[in-house]
């Protein structure tokens, strides 16, 4: 008996991972600098990183965008034309300052649309520091066997970072 294709609409539907090129196009459009994404790599250090938590219309955890401090800092800096050396300083300190945090948060806010292309509507609930103790439901959701894609990112003029998307 053939199994049914996963539902993408209505009650119980889960969002789908976006295509790599769609992620790249969205980030490029927001930061205003060429961004090259390639699959692979791994977020080596949680220090200074972020996890964006997305929920569906029933407020259920639906998707996540996890970044290391470099990806968040370089995107946040490029968006506001902050000089690369300032962004490098933040990466070395492993802590986003308020401006870069706010800038990057806007990127992950708009990135909610990436998960809505083929699945149910999701929206950003919050962005949390990855180094802090995360809420139990978020930890539980991230430990479940959900679909993930991890990407290496090169933000032109700034440097390399890591981004991972997860749904489920």
């Amino acid at each position, binding site marked *: 008996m053939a199994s049914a294709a996963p539902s993408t609409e209505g009650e119980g539907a889960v969002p789908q991972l976006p295509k790599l090129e769609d992620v790249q196009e969205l980030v490029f459009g*927001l930061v*205003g600098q060429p961004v090259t994404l390639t699959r692979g790599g791994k977020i080596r250090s949680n220090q200074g990183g972020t996890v964006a938590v997305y929920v569906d219309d029933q407020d259920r955890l639906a998707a996540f965008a996890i970044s290391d401090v470099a990806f968040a800092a370089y995107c*946040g800096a490029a968006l*506001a034309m902050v000089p690369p050396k300032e962004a490098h300083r933040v990466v070395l300190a492993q802590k986003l300052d308020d401006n870069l945090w*706010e800038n990057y948060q*806007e*990127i992950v806010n*708009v990135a909610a*649309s990436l998960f809505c292309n083929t699945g149910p509507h999701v929206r950003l609930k919050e962005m949390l520091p990855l180094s802090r103790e995360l809420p139990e439901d978020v930890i539980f959701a991230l430990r479940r066997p959900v679909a993930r894609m991890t990407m290496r990112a090169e933000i032109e003029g700034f440097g390399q970072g890591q981004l991972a998307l997860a749904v489920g």
Partner: protein
Amino acid sequence: MKILIVDDSRAMRMIVRRTLRQAGYGQHDIEEAANGREGYEQIQSTKPDLVLCDWNMPEMTGIELLQKLKDEGHGVKFGFVTSESTDEMRARANEAGGLILIAKPFTPDSFKGALAPHIS
């Protein structure tokens, strides 16, 4: 031409400003306001020709701002730049006199396509 960007996110105001420039509208006078209330005050004082406004904001939402302007008979050209773009929102925007609804994420081309009929 004077364009007012109304958005509670400073980062998004920067993105909209940059996209306007990339779409070829960099020569216009571009101003910013951080919420609907501030936008309303700025519309009264600086009299922009076009308002590009977020939908969800503290103090006063974008649709509340547009409705207030309509109620007062203000004729400023008004468009939304918003994360959400449901049919219901489009209908509400149209009903209140909104000319444009641009969904995020957007590109310079999508900006140009939406704004060209309304920018001299």
